[in-house]
């Protein structure tokens, strides 16, 4: 049985189609990533699945329960961590945890083995008010509270946004361990580099899903040759490269530009044409998820 099944679900806010006929399936115990820029509809999808809003059309089920008809059953088997910190800032770390345990009718002791690896890191600050914690600690507390009732499915909406690089890595390590305990995790992130830590990912944009596959599968789907080009005058290089023969697309990518070649592309001719650029340099590069995302977005 799939832990999450979404069938052609849609939700609009006025004229804006926040989620547009999205379908996806997540297997039990899978770490599934929703990758996409701001405004892709990731948060709306989470809110639909967490039963905070009702869909306009389509349906979805979690752990076999329908999100509309059986929302009551869903609430006790789902953990939801919103993108914005939304615990009580005026309660302490410990009080927040006890409070949410009580709302789910469990005790902290019952779930301690599950929560402990994360909670132990913030336990020294258990008397500190949640509002006074640092960003990374807030995330750990929010994750602890979302796990307190041993959910079958965990929703994490952009958990690493605004968190430093070290904490981000730690956070993904924690998710890996939770996954090993059999919890299905649906996580969203705007950072493409985090996508590789997921079992499977869905690339989303403007309320639609552009593609679903494993991170390697997504990258392998990028069949065109890809080059990185550099020169002293990067802007002029970009302009010229876009006009050159055999170039499907060229876009800035970190320190260099990525150039997507089509069948008419000839590396030697291209080198000759661009020799006039001061410090010109070209090399073949491996495509990344971001390259695939850009390609899919333009189709």
């Amino acid at each position, binding site marked *: 049985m799939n832990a999450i099944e979404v069938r052609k679900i849609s939700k609009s806010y006025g004229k804006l189609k926040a989620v547009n006929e999205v379908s996806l399936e997540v297997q039990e115990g899978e770490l599934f990533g929703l990758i996409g820029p701001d405004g892709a509809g990731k948060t709306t999808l989470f809110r639909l699945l*967490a*039963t*905070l*809003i*009702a869909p306009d059309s389509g349906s979805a089920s979690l752990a076999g329960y329908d999100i509309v008809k059986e*929302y*009551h059953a869903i*609430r*006790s088997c*789902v953990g*939801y961590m*919103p993108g*914005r*910190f*939304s*615990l*009580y*800032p*005026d*309660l302490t770390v410990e*009080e927040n945890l*006890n*409070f*949410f345990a*009580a*709302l*789910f*009718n469990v005790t902290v002791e019952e779930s301690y083995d599950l929560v402990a690896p994360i909670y132990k890191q913030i336990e020294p600050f258990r008397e500190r*008010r949640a509002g006074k914690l640092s960003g990374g600690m807030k995330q750990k507390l929010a994750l602890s*509270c979302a796990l307190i009732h041993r959910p079958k499915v965990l929703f994490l909406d952009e958990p690493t946004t605004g968190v430093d690089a070290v904490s981000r890595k730690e956070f993904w390590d924690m998710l890996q361990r939770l996954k090993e305990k059999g919890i299905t995790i649906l996580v969203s992130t705007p950072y493409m580099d985090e996508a590789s830590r997921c079992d499977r990912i869905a690339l989303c944009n403007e309320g639609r899903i552009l593609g679903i596959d494993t991170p390697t599968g997504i990258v392998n789907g990028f069949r065109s040759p890809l080059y990185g080009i550099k020169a002293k005058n990067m802007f002029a290089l970009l302009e010229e490269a876009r006009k050159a023969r055999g170039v499907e697309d060229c876009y800035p990518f970190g320190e260099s530009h990525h150039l997507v070649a089509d069948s008419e592309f000839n590396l030697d001719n291209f080198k000759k044409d661009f020799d006039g650029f001061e410090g010109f340099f070209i090399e073949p590069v491996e495509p990344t998820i971001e390259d695939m995302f850009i390609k899919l977005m333009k189709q």
Partner: protein
Amino acid sequence: MRTFSVLIRKEFLQLKRNPFMPKLIIMFPIMIMLIMPLIMTMDVRNVNVAVVDLDNSTASRRIASHIDASEYLSLAAVTAEYSEAMNALEEGDADIIVQIPSDFERETAIGGNKRISITANAVNATKGGLGMQYLVQTIARALAEIKGERSPAGITELVTVKNSYNPTLNYRHYMIPALMIMLFILVCGFLPALSIVGEKENGSIEQINVTPLSRFTFTLSKLVPYWLIGMFVLTVAMTVAWLVYGLAPAGSVGLIYFGAALFILVISGFSLMIANFSDTLQQTMFVMFFFIMMFMLMSGLLTPVDSMPDWAQKITYFLPPRYFIDILRSVYLKGTTLADMWQNFTALGVFAAIFNVLATVTYKKQK
């Protein structure tokens, strides 16, 4: 049960940690009860009277001295020129002009009909109106005295006035119950709404909504703390009224608490309902202010319902404070019992039920 007690504990913890709220809840009733009764008075004192004495007789001087001696009136000037008195009125030195015509004493002695004329500045209608009444009474008393001296039969009082229940006609005693109700409206009308909207603004309501917690328990957890706070506010207000103004309820204290218990439920339920329909603090405050204005100005707190136009009197039946002000004033000043006021208690009970059911139903965990 454990969930509920944790919810209540959380409300009080949050309240306690708020740097401002606990002070407000204690200081608010004390300040209002200490200051407002002193300034909210409809008793008109120090009405300045200018006497235009064209008669210059014993009778006219007697009238002037009676005015001077009155507790409510003070003699601003005695002149022989109306224009001079009019100037004083325009300058604001006098509020009322009394003109005693020439030959007044002689004419009254032979039964003639020379009349005293009174001109009042009615810009402040209450002062003008009440001042005029005091003045007429004072002059009548002076004239009766003069007549009594002439006919040995003695003074015959024509009118006797006796104020039952509030014998000294102390406006303060009339206003103190109204002030208590205003305190409930402000404390128990605003705090529950602010608490819910606060959760909406900091996002914690989303975390509550994804739990299996029922909306009934959640609504109840927002009602009970403010109900207890309301009872505390009542106790403080009653103590101040007793210690400072010597006003103790003529009727049963238990009945006052019972009425307050119902009324706080009404106003808190109403407040929760408003909060359910608002997304932001500003929105809640603005809507609450609108209703609070209606509650305060239309429920007979400040002006008697009986003197309102007919259509407005009908509207007051839909305003819960109307029933509670009746209860509070009657029990405080008259010593009314439950048997006399059961309709009012029933009305409050019905309002409490309606508002709280609506507050629960309109709280949506899913949009």
